[in-house]
């Protein structure tokens, strides 16, 4: 079993729905983003175009972030290949942030809230403040949801059905089929990380 994701760039309209639903699901503090959408502008007028690139942790098969971690806080779940962080073991050395070629790790360095002097909202008190500070955070494919048989929040909330989630070890799964049939590709394969997030051409 190896969980993976496929993102169809042809379907993505850059609505940031994944980014917001991830924030809502995981209660990530300000400055921590498990899912983001990169906006890229290419070309020049009159042929300029904007492309959207949704990014998240690639749950790499050969994750440099895990290799450099001195404490074992960064680890791979043996049973499903998800790369995760044990916050209780993290010393906040930030080595993993500099090892991840995809910039998918964030330090929750101090308690923060979104509404300034107004203080933390009840939602923030309940969801954001449960995260430890002084530790690095990142996407874990909503592992709790997945173990309960649900899809990750970003997949479930994508209004254009641009995201697919499934088992890459199963050749019959939808993700495997899409990669095969539509020439799916990972980001920066030259870094040798063997990502488990694939993109379908726009």
């Amino acid at each position, binding site marked *: 079993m190896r969980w993976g994701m496929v993102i169809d760039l042809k379907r993505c309209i850059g609505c940031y729905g994944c980014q917001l639903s991830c924030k809502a699901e995981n209660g990530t503090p300000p*400055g921590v983003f498990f899912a983001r959408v990169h906006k890229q502008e290419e070309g020049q007028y009159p042929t300029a175009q904007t492309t959207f690139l949704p990014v998240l942790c690639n749950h790499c098969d050969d994750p440099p972030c895990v*290799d450099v971690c001195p404490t074992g806080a960064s680890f791979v779940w043996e049973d499903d290949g998800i790369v995760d962080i044990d916050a209780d073991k993290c010393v906040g050395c930030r080595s993993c942030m500099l090892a991840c070629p995809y910039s998918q790790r964030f330090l929750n360095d101090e308690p923060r809230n979104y*509404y300034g002097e107004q203080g933390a909202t009840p939602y923030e008190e309940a969801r954001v403040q449960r995260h430890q500070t002084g530790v690095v955070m990142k996407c874990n494919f909503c592992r709790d949801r997945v173990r309960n048989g649900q899809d990750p929040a970003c997949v479930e909330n994508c209004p254009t059905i641009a995201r697919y989630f499934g088992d890459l070890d199963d050749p019959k799964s939808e993700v495997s089929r899409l990669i095969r049939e539509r020439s799916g590709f990972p*980001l920066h394969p030259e870094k040798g990380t063997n990502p488990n997030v694939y993109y379908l051409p726009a």
Partner: protein
Amino acid sequence: MTSTSSGRYEQLLKDYQTEYRPQREWSEGRGFYLIVGHFLVGVAAGAWLFGLFFQDLISLLAGFVLAGLGGLAHLANLARPERFILMMLRTATSWVSRGFWGLTLFLVGSVIYLPSLMFTDTFWQSDSVIASAGVAISIAGSIIMMAYMGFVYTASKAIPFWNSTLHPVLYISYALRGGAAAYLLSLAFQGEAVAGGSDILVFWIAVTATVIVLWLFEIQGALTSGEEAAVRSVHDILAGRLALYFYVGILLIGLFVPVFLMAGIIAPLSPTLFAIIGLSSVAGDFFMKFSSIKAGIFMPVRLQSGNTRRATRRRKI
């Protein structure tokens, strides 16, 4: 509770809007202590090896104290320093963990060896088995300390400028240059005759030449790597935000001043001159580490051209 109006948050958001994002993790805020820590443990390891070679107690003591301070600086770099002991768990893959062991071995070895030199009647003799074991442990620790820093940077795949395989050799050379400078300072402190230091000056010149050659190779490697982030890092050092540190700190203070003084142009070599040469050399090393760490720029995450049409799968599905 800090709100989102804190400067660091604003900076983070601004950084994420730029394509070429400078790394701040290991150079700003508590990250500055990592630069200090790497600088101190490098000089400490070099000073210790020179102290052993020349049987110079002051260099040995300097190495021990600097390593202790370097260890504290490493702790100050951690966001959760109270958990530091966990850092010994991952020596199989993590150079940070190996560096932690190197520093620990060094401190343990030097604590065993130093009393034999300082309190000869109270503890074991310097030629005893215990003292020899201390020396062996401390040498192992200092070699790991000298090497680990370079490997830590090389393993940082997100920063193309640091990915050079020459980095570890360069950091070992810095450590030896730092050790030579520390020994010069020790000679100056002891008012030693100039003759005693001329060998070390020759060594300093040789190791400095090695550093320069390695550094030029690194720059050339970065410029020809095909990584725009690495090219920008070089530009930042030579003609951008770090140019002042490069020209004044590294070239003027760290290279020209010592070479000028060594040539005996201003005054004949003397202990005072040794001290100035030693100090300017270590100051230059600090600026070198500071600028190369600060110059780190994250590789941008983007679709590469052709990516959208071509499958680049490596595994069979």
